[in-house]
């Protein structure tokens, strides 16, 4: 259907029509449901071996829920997540544990994602305690030291506690823990957004090096569009629980066709004062509606300058718009808009 850039490998993760609703309840002892937060509302994508899929969106768009669904911290309300053919949303017990070995997570906040009362050695070694078949007991300590070395920390620090490290170093510890079981997929939820600018680059470079070294596939979730562009092969843009546009990094950043993507890109401050005048800014009005009560039809219509009556009635599907497909070129990529149209908004692009 479309040229998706270079196919890196076979799809190892297939997500189809994924839905996650969180019930809203009232009452203390006798709870009754009064509604639902529709955090993720029908999302499909593939992740191929060794590639990086970036997911961007603003807070509340459901991107963190996707991360938690992918590593099975939440169970989907509907839809499937298939890892090598197995539906991980339905697994339990030993089968789930086996799949978990292959899909690991790196968390956003390096200050809360490490147990303050465990040594670094215990934190990175815990995966081996939970999955003893991966490394024989006598070998674990050596493996932990190796992992510390791989992520650029000194193996001598094995007996230290997390609070003795800086934010960037803690994030390395979290990455080492994620790597311990040699997973195929790492889901990284805002892995650098809590770090200082100069340290962010170090961690981004580390993630890239590890990807090459261990042939990892990343689902890289972030609100920082620049970082996502830097690291991703493909990008999905989310708004209120749905993907509104998806394509290679060049398709999304240089040839965006969805109004939301265009507004989002145009709002990113570019570190180039010369571009200040050149840039065309699309300022959206209003706030993101509540995911408990999303607008009908196209969810972006309440903030969209292109909205017409059709947008309130018919929900646009995420597919290549027929008029763009005919024209061909990089603008022909999936975009969930009735009036999708290319508009370059990134200065210098």
């Amino acid at each position, binding site marked *: 259907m479309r040229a998706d850039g270079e196919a890196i490998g076979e799809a190892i993760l297939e997500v189809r029509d994924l839905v996650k609703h969180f019930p809203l309840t009232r009452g203390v002892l006798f709870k009754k449901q009064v509604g639902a937060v529709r955090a993720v509302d029908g999302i499909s994508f593939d992740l191929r071996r060794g590639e990086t899929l970036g997911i961007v969106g*603003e*807070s509340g768009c459901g991107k963190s829920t996707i991360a938690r669904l992918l590593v099975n911290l939440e169970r989907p309300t509907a839809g499937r997540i298939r890892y090598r053919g197995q539906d991980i949303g339905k697994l339990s017990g030993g089968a789930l544990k086996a799949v978990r070995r292959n899909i690991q997570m790196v968390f956003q906040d390096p200050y809360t994602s490490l147990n303050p009362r465990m040594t670094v050695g215990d934190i990175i070694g815990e995966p081996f305690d939970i999955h003893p078949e991966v490394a024989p007991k006598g070998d674990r300590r050596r493996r932990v030291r190796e992992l510390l070395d791989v992520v650029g920390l000194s193996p001598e620090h094995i007996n230290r506690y997390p609070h003795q490290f*800086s934010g*960037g*170093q803690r994030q390395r510890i979290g990455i080492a823990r994620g790597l311990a079981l040699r997973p195929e997929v790492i889901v990284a939820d805002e892995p650098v957004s809590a770090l*200082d*600018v*100069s*340290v*962010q*680059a*170090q961690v*981004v*470079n580390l993630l*890239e090096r590890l990807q090459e070294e261990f042939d990892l596939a990343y689902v890289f979730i972030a*609100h920082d*569009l*620049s*970082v996502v*562009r*830097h*690291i991703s092969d493909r990008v999905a843009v989310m708004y209120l629980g749905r993907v509104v546009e998806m394509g290679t*990094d*060049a398709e999304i*950043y240089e040839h965006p066709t969805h109004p939301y993507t265009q*507004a*989002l*890109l145009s*709002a*990113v*401050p*570019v*570190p*180039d*004062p*010369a*571009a*200040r005048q050149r840039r065309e*800014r699309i*300022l*959206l*009005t*209003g*706030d*993101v509606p509540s995911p408990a009560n999303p607008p009908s039809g196209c969810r972006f219509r309440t903030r969209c300058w292109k909205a017409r009556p059709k947008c309130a009635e018919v929900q646009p599907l995420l597919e290549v718009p027929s008029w763009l497909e005919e024209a061909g070129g990089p603008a022909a990529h999936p975009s969930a808009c009735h009036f999708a149209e290319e508009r370059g908004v*990134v*200065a*210098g*692009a």
Partner: protein
Amino acid sequence: MENTALLEVRDLRVEFRTREGVAKAVNGVSCTVHAGQTLAVLGESGSGKSVTAQAVMGILDSPPGFVTGGQVLFQGRDLLTMGEEQRRRLRGAKLAMIFQDALSALNPVMTVGAQLAEMYQVHRGMSGKEARARAVQLMDRVRIPAAKERVNDYPHQFSGGMRQRIMIAMALALEPDLIIADEPTTALDVTVQAQVMDLLAELRREFNMGLILITHDLGVVADVADRIAVMYAGRIVETAPVHQLYEAPAHPYTRGLLDSIPRLDRKGQRLHAIKGLPPSLTAIPPGCPFNPRCPRAQDICRTDRPPLFPVAAGRTSACHFWKDTLDAR
């Protein structure tokens, strides 16, 4: 730009006395802001940028923080030697501050209208009714939709962007001459961030205020600042007009920061990260504080602390090798 500076900070020094030792958070910062000008103070966490702002505002937690030297001249008067009572009257009326976290900066048990009205009642002695009318006007001014109805809402009933607008409204209430905004948009989403920054810039122009924007975001700075002061380990390491700084930085730290951020408008190769970490403020390296991380470091950098060398008109750099850094472009 006027001749007399609105705010002139001279050799400001702040330290924190803690159990672990003395942390030298600000070590001789000097800068000036003129009316109608936006000065961006750029730095990473621990660079002393927020502490500088707090010392200028006089809201430093003391203890553990102590201003140990320097002058803060606001319209020619030294804030640091002024009586606390006098200073408090200036705060809010003449200089105001906007914080990063609007939710914790607003009182959760008072309606936003009451909080805004309080400014007028306390500082201007207005009647309750009059003050309330002004509060609604103000909320209109920062473009909060349906201000008349929402004036009786509590802070938690507003979205993050709206709360930040209310913070701006509070800062603007008494039409101050200088606003200090400490990471005003860091907690906001990018589309909302753009709205709030635009609003702030527009109001600054309209009231001809001075604005000190404290941030770590090189993108935001490029968008709104006139001048930039880059801070590192409690010192200003470079000052320059915004265009010149981005075009040709005169300090290796600034260069490193610019090289280490991924760009939206181009897909690069590996990022050029600055190696190492910012120093602990209890143990700042001798000589140039940046020397352990600096690709240009020579012996002199480890022994002699570089002063701010004049580089060009309106430009300074605290690097022994500023010339090489400039030419490296």
